[in-house]
């Protein structure tokens, strides 16, 4: 029964105009960043590295495809999760709003299977968008700016040779996918709780901002600092630490995956227990 439900959810998702607006928005932001980098990137980079140039000699072009991939990767902080959360939460809130959830629940379909199909659809959509973002940026950035070493500022300037940089960017995208899945899962659970699209969008945006604030906050408690979910949403960023701590990143990702499953289970439980309509 799950496969027909999944097919139906994906069919509906890609027939809705808002899905294509969301994809368009993601690609437009990417296009704006690449265009801005093409015209102003070199000047900005010169400005940033001006002091360093007085002490060091830089070889090669630092405004390259890898740097652009890294800049686009930073969409994972706010704009990409926000767009994905809006689309994912609409999977359930639009059904409440249009009365189609009632029609669905009046068919020979179980509540648990329907909502599980919606979570899986949200996972698939999130993965597809991230893959699209990576692929289009890779093609455009490499064809326009070429390859080269990556310079990243994370408290200090870290330099990575081109091959190493590309590997780290790929891993960061994979880790970033887990972070995006966490946010989209939370938004779908919020949709189940709040039912109304506008309320859910506001709550999702608030959750995203709150996570960003809590990520920077220092709680002074080692357990909270290590295991509280807002502290885990930036695991992908650690791929650009000069000394790579794979174990720590792996644990962060596993914990975040655990939180994602937890929020999904809470959503499925609430949906199956609550009345419809």
């Amino acid at each position, binding site marked *: 029964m799950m496969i027909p439900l999944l097919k139906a959810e994906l069919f509906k998702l890609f027939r809705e105009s808002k899905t294509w607006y969301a994809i368009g928005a993601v690609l437009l932001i990417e296009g704006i960043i690449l265009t801005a980098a093409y015209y102003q990137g070199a000047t900005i980079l010169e400005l940033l590295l001006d002091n360093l140039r007085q002490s060091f000699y830089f070889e090669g072009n630092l405004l390259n495809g890898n740097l652009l991939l890294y800049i686009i990767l930073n969409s994972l902080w706010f704009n990409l999760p926000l767009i994905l959360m809006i689309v994912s939460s609409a999977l359930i809130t639009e059904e409440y709003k249009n009365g189609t959830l*009632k029609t669905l629940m009046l068919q020979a379909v179980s509540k648990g299977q329907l909502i599980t199909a919606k979570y899986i659809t949200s996972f698939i959509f999130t993965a597809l968008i991230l893959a699209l973002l990576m692929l289009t940026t890779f093609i455009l950035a490499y064809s326009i700016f070429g390859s080269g070493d990556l310079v990243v500022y994370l408290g200090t300037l870290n330099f990575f040779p081109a091959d190493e940089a590309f590997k780290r960017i790929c891993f960061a995208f994979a880790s970033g996918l887990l972070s995006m899945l966490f946010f989209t899962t939370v938004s779908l659970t919020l949709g189940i709780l709040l039912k109304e699209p506008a309320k859910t969008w506001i709550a999702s945006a608030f959750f995203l901002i709150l996570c960003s604030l809590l990520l920077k906050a220092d709680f002074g408690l080692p357990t909270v600092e290590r295991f509280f979910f807002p502290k885990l949403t930036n695991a992908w960023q650690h791929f650009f630490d000069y000394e790579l701590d794979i174990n720590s990143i792996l644990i962060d990702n596993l914990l975040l995956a655990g939180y994602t499953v937890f929020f999904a289970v809470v959503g499925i439980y609430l949906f199956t227990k609550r009345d419809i309509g």
Partner: protein
Amino acid sequence: MLHATELSKSYKSGNALHNFSIELKPGVISGLLGRNGAGKTTLFKILCGLITPDYGTVAVASKRAKPIGAVIEQPGLYGYLNAYENLRLFAQIQKAPADVNSVKNYLESVGLPVDRKDPVRNFSMGMKQRLGIAIALLNDPDILILDEPFSGLDPTGVASLIKLIKKLATQNIAILLSSHLMTELQKCCDYLYVIDNGTLVNKGETRMLLDGLISRYTITATNIETSRTLQPYLVAAEKNTASIKCSSEHIPGILQNVLEEGFAVTSCLPDITLEQLVIPLAP
């Protein structure tokens, strides 16, 4: 086929349903009559399993994958899909036949055109109701529940929907429909339940229930207000319309005499109000 016993449901705002019992039988069209907010939709949602009652039980004697098909409130359809896509989608998710011919048959069975390709958001309310019924009938349920199916329909749409409902009843489907408009229920229901403030206040076979209560009729014909036959019964008269007071057993004779006087009667409608039906049931 369906026995619901002593259903009760209350919300923070008060009692929505109180000790309501109802029975549906195959091939019988039952009507639920009540004012807006009387508890009709709450009852339907409980019968369909969308909400859980505080008390009471619903027992359905059916072995089908989908025992009850229903349209509750407005038909919930995907406005951006066309009728064919809506039907195919709902058929696929429950593994009902969803090939081209089956979907076309579903559309034809409710009198919808098979060649309309535009999204259902462009459809009239009548067409949406029909599509909603087609979706409700997927997987051949034993029971069909329709909540206010006549609201928003023009007279042609109402007549055509009544015809469809009667046709479905001949297929041995137990049908329950609600309305706050008595005329429509009177035209198609075999049995009536009257609900007020969440409580069952009256029930019975439609003809028996109404015949006992109807005492006024409105007769329409050219210059009918001048009819000599009607004068002893006349309560009110306007041009071409006469309102008379008499019992139901007298009406055939009166009409016969009016026709013999040479009046071409175009309609004779019983005047009965919902308020007349909202009287407590005998203990």
